[in-house]
C-alpha cells in the first residue's frame, strides 16, 4: 500500500511554528510512504499537485497534514475522487488548529506534527474504500394530526403536487383551533379563517384524510416509511352519508359534548361541530342504546335503532369493523398538538368541584355564538349572567410544584382576548386578571394588551391566586395578592376562568418511541437543533410542527408547518438519497446474539437475523444507522465494527505512538 503525505504550510500559519521540512523528512522515512509539502494545499495548484501525485506514484491513500478536517475534509475528498481514488481513502492530520496555533515551542510542535501525521498514516493503512448507499424516495407524506399545523403542512405539500395523507384521531379535522371563538390580536373569528383551510384540504385531490383514525405502527427509514393506520369503525358509511343530520336530530341519547368541553349536550350519534370535515357523524358505542343492549345481550336484535330507521341514505352500519390500512411514505410530519392542562391537581382552586370555576377552553365555548349558550356568558351552575369574572393566569404553567415548570406562551394573550370579549359581550361587566408577568412578545401583541387595559378597563393584578371557594350566597371568593401594592386581595366573583396551560398530548411518548423522536422532560418532542433545525428531528425524514414541539400560538404553528412542508418538499425533489457510509456492520460468524448492541442503539438500528444453523444474530439496518459506534463498544466479541473507524484502525493509531 502506497501512501502519500501532503504537508501544508498554510502560508505561515503552520510553517511559522512547525518545521514542515522535518515533518516531510520524518514521514518519508516510513516504509511505503511518499511525502511532500506545499504552501497552500487547498488551493487549486495544491489540489492538482495531489491529483498528479496520486496518478504518478499510484498512491492508494492520501494524508493531508493541514487545517482541521471540519474545514477541508470535503474539499480533499473531492480531490481524491478527481484523482481516481475512493474519497474515504483520505485522512487529515490537523496540524494547524490543534498544533501550530496552540503551541509556541518549535521543536515540540514539530514533534507533535510528526506524531499526528504518523497516526494518520497508521489509520490510512487500514482504510477501505467505502461507498455511499443509494435509496429511493417514496413521494408521499404522512401527516399525523389534523389541527391547523397538520392541515397547513398538508396543503403546502399537496399544492406542490405530492400525495399527502392526514391521520386524525377525532371524527373531524380542525383540532383545538375549531373550538376557539376569536383569535388574538386581530380578533378574527377562528372558524372563519380555519374552515376554508379545512375545506381546501378535503377537496384537494392530493390530500387523503383519515379521521377517527390512529397510526399504529411506523417502520422503515427516510424515503421509505411503512405505516399501519387503524381507521376506527364509525358505524356510518362515509360514501352513503349525505350529512343531512336527521340521525342526530332523532337520536334519543344525550351525553356531554367533548367539543363543548362538557358544557353542552351532544347525541350518541354526532358530528362534533357544525363545520366538521368530513360532515359524517360517528356513533359513540359507549353511550349508544343499541350497542349497550348488544353488550348486555349479544343474541338480541338490539334496542333503539332509531337512527337506522330514519336515515334516508341507509348509511347506518352497526356491524362496521375497524379497518387497517398499510401505506408507504417518504416522509412523516408529526403535528399532534397539545392537551389542555387538567386543573384537578389544584386543590386550592377547588380541583374541579366548583362548576363556576371554568377553564379557558370552556370560556372560549361560552363566548362562541355557536356554543352551548349561544354566546351568552352564563354561569354553568345556575345559568345566570356572570358580571364579575376573575381570570387567573399561569394555572398549569410556571408551576414546578404541579410538574409544569415552563411558560405556556399563549395564556397571557388569550386571557387578554377573553377579558376583552367579555367586555364586548357585557360592557359593564367587571374583569380582573391575576398575572405574574405579562408575556406579549409578538407582532401587535403588546399593543393589544394595552388596549385591553386602557380602553376596556380590565384590571390587572400582579399576583397568584391562593384559594378559590364558594361562599354561602353562591358567589366565588377569590383570595389573591397584588404584589405591586403589597396587599392581600379578595374578590367576590360570579365566575372564575383558569388560564390553563398547554401540556403535551398523552400519546406523545408512545408515538415518539415508535417513530424515534426524542422528547424532553415535559414530554414535548425535541427538535434536531433548537435554533438551526427547529422543524427537523433526530430521525431523518421525520419532521415536527405545531404545539407538539412546544406551546405555540396559531401564527407560529402555521409558520412551522410551512417549514416542515418545505423540508419534505426538499426531500421529495430528490430521486435518490445518498446515505453516509460510516455505518456499523456485524460479523455474523462470531456474533453471539447477546444483543447488547441493540440495548444501547439509540436508533433501533439493530435487528435480529436467523442464520441457517438457527442461531439468532444481530444485523444492522443500514438506513437507520447513524454511525455513532455505540454498539461497537457494547459488543464483547468485537463482532460489530464501524466502517471508517474500525477497532483495528484505532488500535493502529494508538500503537503508532510507541
Amino acid at each position, binding site marked *: 500500500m502506497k501512501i502519500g503525505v501532503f504537508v501544508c504550510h498554510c502560508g505561515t500559519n503552520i510553517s511559522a511554528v512547525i518545521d514542515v521540512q522535518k515533518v516531510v523528512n520524518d514521514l518519508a522515512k516510513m516504509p511505503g510512504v511518499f511525502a511532500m509539502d506545499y504552501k497552500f494545499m487547498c488551493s487549486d495548484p495544491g489540489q492538482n499537485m495531489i491529483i498528479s501525485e496520486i496518478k504518478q506514484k499510484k498512491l492508494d491513500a492520501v494524508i493531508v497534514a493541514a487545517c482541521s478536517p471540519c474545514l477541508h475534509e470535503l474539499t480533499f475528498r473531492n480531490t481524491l475522487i478527481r484523482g481516481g481514488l475512493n474519497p474515504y481513502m483520505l485522512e487529515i492530520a490537523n496540524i494547524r488548529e490543534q498544533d501550530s496555533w496552540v503551541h509556541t515551542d518549535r521543536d515540540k510542535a514539530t514533534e507533535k506534527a510528526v506524531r499526528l501525521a504518523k497516526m494518520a498514516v497508521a489509520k490510512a493503512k487500514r482504510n477501505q474504500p467505502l461507498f455511499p448507499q443509494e435509496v429511493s424516495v417514496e413521494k408521499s407524506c404522512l401527516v399525523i394530526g389534523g389541527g391547523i399545523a397538520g392541515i397547513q403542512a398538508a396543503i403546502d405539500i399537496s399544492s406542490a403536487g405530492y400525495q399527502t395523507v392526514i391521520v386524525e384521531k377525532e371524527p373531524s379535522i380542525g383540532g383545538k383551533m375549531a373550538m376557539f371563538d376569536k383569535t388574538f390580536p386581530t380578533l378574527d373569528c377562528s372558524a372563519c379563517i380555519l374552515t376554508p383551510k379545512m375545506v381546501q384540504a378535503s377537496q384537494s385531490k392530493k390530500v387523503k384524510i383519515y379521521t377517527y383514525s390512529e397510526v399504529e405502527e411506523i417502520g422503515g427509514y427516510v424515503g421509505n416509511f411503512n405505516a399501519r393506520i387503524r381507521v376506527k369503525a364509525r358505524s356510518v358509511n362515509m360514501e352513503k352519508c349525505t350529512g343531512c343530520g336527521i340521525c342526530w336530530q332523532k337520536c334519543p341519547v344525550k351525553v356531554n359534548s367533548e367539543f363543548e368541553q362538557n358544557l353542552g349536550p351532544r347525541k350518541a350519534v354526532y358530528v362534533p361541530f357544525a363545520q366538521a370535515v368530513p360532515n359524517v357523524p360517528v356513533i359513540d358505542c359507549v353511550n349508544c342504546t343499541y350497542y349497550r343492549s348488544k353488550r348486555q345481550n349479544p343474541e338480541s336484535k338490539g334496542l333503539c335503532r332509531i337512527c337506522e330507521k330514519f336515515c334516508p341514505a341507509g348509511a347506518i352500519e352497526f356491524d362496521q369493523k375497524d379497518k387497517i390500512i398499510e401505506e408507504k411514505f417518504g416522509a412523516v410530519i408529526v403535528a399532534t398538538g397539545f392537551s389542555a392542562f387538567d386543573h384537578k391537581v389544584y*386543590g*386550592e382552586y377547588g*380541583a374541579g*368541584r366548583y362548576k363556576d370555576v371554568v377553564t379557558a377552553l370552556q370560556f372560549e365555548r361560552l363566548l362562541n355564538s355557536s356554543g352551548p349558550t349561544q354566546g351568552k356568558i352564563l354561569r354553568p351552575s345556575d345559568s345566570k349572567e356572570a358580571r364579575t369574572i376573575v381570570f387567573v393566569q399561569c394555572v398549569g404553567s410556571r408551576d414546578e410544584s404541579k410538574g409544569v415548570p415552563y411558560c405556556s406562551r399563549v395564556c397571557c394573550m388569550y386571557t387578554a382576548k377573553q377579558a376583552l370579549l367579555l367586555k364586548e359581550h357585557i360592557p359593564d361587566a367587571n374583569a380582573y386578571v391575576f398575572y405574574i408577568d405579562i408575556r406579549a412578545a409578538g407582532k401587535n401583541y403588546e399593543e393589544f394588551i394595552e388596549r385591553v387595559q386602557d380602553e376596556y378597563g380590565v384590571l390587572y393584578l400582579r399576583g397568584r391566586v391562593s*384559594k378559590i*371557594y*364558594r*361562599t*354561602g350566597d353562591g358567589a366565588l371568593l377569590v383570595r389573591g395578592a397584588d404584589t405591586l401594592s403589597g396587599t392581600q386581595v379578595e374578590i367576590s366573583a360570579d365566575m372564575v376562568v383558569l388560564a390553563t396551560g398547554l401540556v403535551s398530548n398523552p400519546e406523545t411518548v408512545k408515538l415518539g418511541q415508535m417513530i424515534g423522536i426524542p422528547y424532553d422532560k415535559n414530554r414535548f418532542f425535541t427538535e434536531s437543533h433548537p435554533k438551526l433545525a427547529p422543524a427537523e428531528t433526530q430521525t431523518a425524514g421525520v419532521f415536527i410542527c405545531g404545539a407538539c414541539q412546544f406551546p405555540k400560538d396559531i401564527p407560529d404553528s402555521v409558520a412551522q408547518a410551512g417549514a416542515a412542508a418545505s423540508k419534505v418538499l426538499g426531500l421529495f425533489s430528490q430521486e435518490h438519497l445518498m446515505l453516509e457510509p460510516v455505518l456499523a456492520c456485524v460479523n455474523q460468524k462470531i456474533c453471539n446474539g447477546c444483543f447488547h448492541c441493540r440495548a444501547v442503539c439509540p436508533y433501533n438500528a439493530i435487528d435480529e437475523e436467523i442464520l441457517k444453523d438457527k442461531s439468532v444474530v444481530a444485523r444492522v439496518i443500514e438506513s437507520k444507522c447513524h454511525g455513532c459506534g455505540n454498539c461497537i463498544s457494547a459488543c464483547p466479541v468485537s463482532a460489530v465494527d464501524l466502517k471508517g473507524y474500525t477497532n483495528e484502525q484505532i488500535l493502529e493509531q494508538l500503537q503508532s505512538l510507541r
Partner: protein
Amino acid sequence: MKYAYYPGCSLHSTSREYDMSAKEVSTRLGIELIEAPDWVCCGATPAHVTMHVLSQALPVKSLINAKQTGADTMAVCCAACFSRLKIANYHVLNDPGKKAKINRAVGAEYNGEVAVKHLLEILAKDFGLENLKGKMTAKLDGLKVACYYGCLLVRPRKIMQFDDEENPTIMDAVVETTGAKTVDWPGKVECCGASFSITKTGVVLRLCRDILQLASDAGAECIAVACPLCQSNLDLRQPEVNKKYDKKFDMPVLYFTQILGLAMGIDWKKLGLDKHIVSPLKFLKGKNIIK
C-alpha cells in the same frame, strides 16, 4: 390492636374531654392505648421557632419512651403534637446528619423504629371504616357536621402523608360512619391561629370568626375537630368572637371522638360533653341524641 398512646399536655388539662372520649371509644373498639411512660411535651411551636435541635429532641425522647410499651406505633390525638412527632421521625429517617444531632441531644440511639399515627388514621385505615360502622349502635341521622382539620394534620404532605392537603376527607369518612351528614365546606384547612391564642388574641378572633362563618354558611350545626388547639380556639373564644364582631354563633365544637362515642351509646358524661364552653347539651337534646 395495641398502640402506644401520646396524649400531650392539652389532653391532660384544657382538653380532658378529648382524652376521655378517645379512651372510651378505643376501649369500646378493642383498641388498646397504652400511655407512653413519662412522655414529655412535644415542644410545640415555641420550640421549633427557637431551637431546631430541641424541637426534634423532645418528640424523640417521647418516642424512645414509647418503645417500652412494646407497641411499634404511637397513637396521637393532638394534631400539633402529631405534627411535631411525625416531623421528628421524618428527619431521623431521612436525614442522617440531623439524626446524629438529635441522638446526641437526647443521649440515646433512636432510628425511627416507632411509627406515628393520628387516631383518625388508626380508625379509618387500621381498624377500617366498615368495621367502625358495625360498632355504631345509635344513628346520628340529621346531625350536620363541618369537619375541621386545621393546618397541622395535613401539611406539609411530603412529611405528613396523611390526606389531600387542600380537601382532606378522612375525618368526614370517619364521622359519616355514625350516620351524621358532613358538609362540603371550604374552611377545612384554614388556620385558626392556634399558637397565637394567648399572644395575639385579636388575630385568633378574626380567624375563628371566618371559620365559624364558613361553617354556618355551609349549613353545619356543629364542628368536628381532631385537635385540642383548634377546639379551644373555636370553643373558648366563641363568646369573644360574638362580642367583638357582633355575631350570634352558637356552634358547638366537638371532638370527633365525642361524636363517635355518642353513636356508640356511651354516656355523655363519660365523653366530657359537659366541659365545653359553648355547651352542646341543649343542642344534642334537641336532636334526641342524648336524653
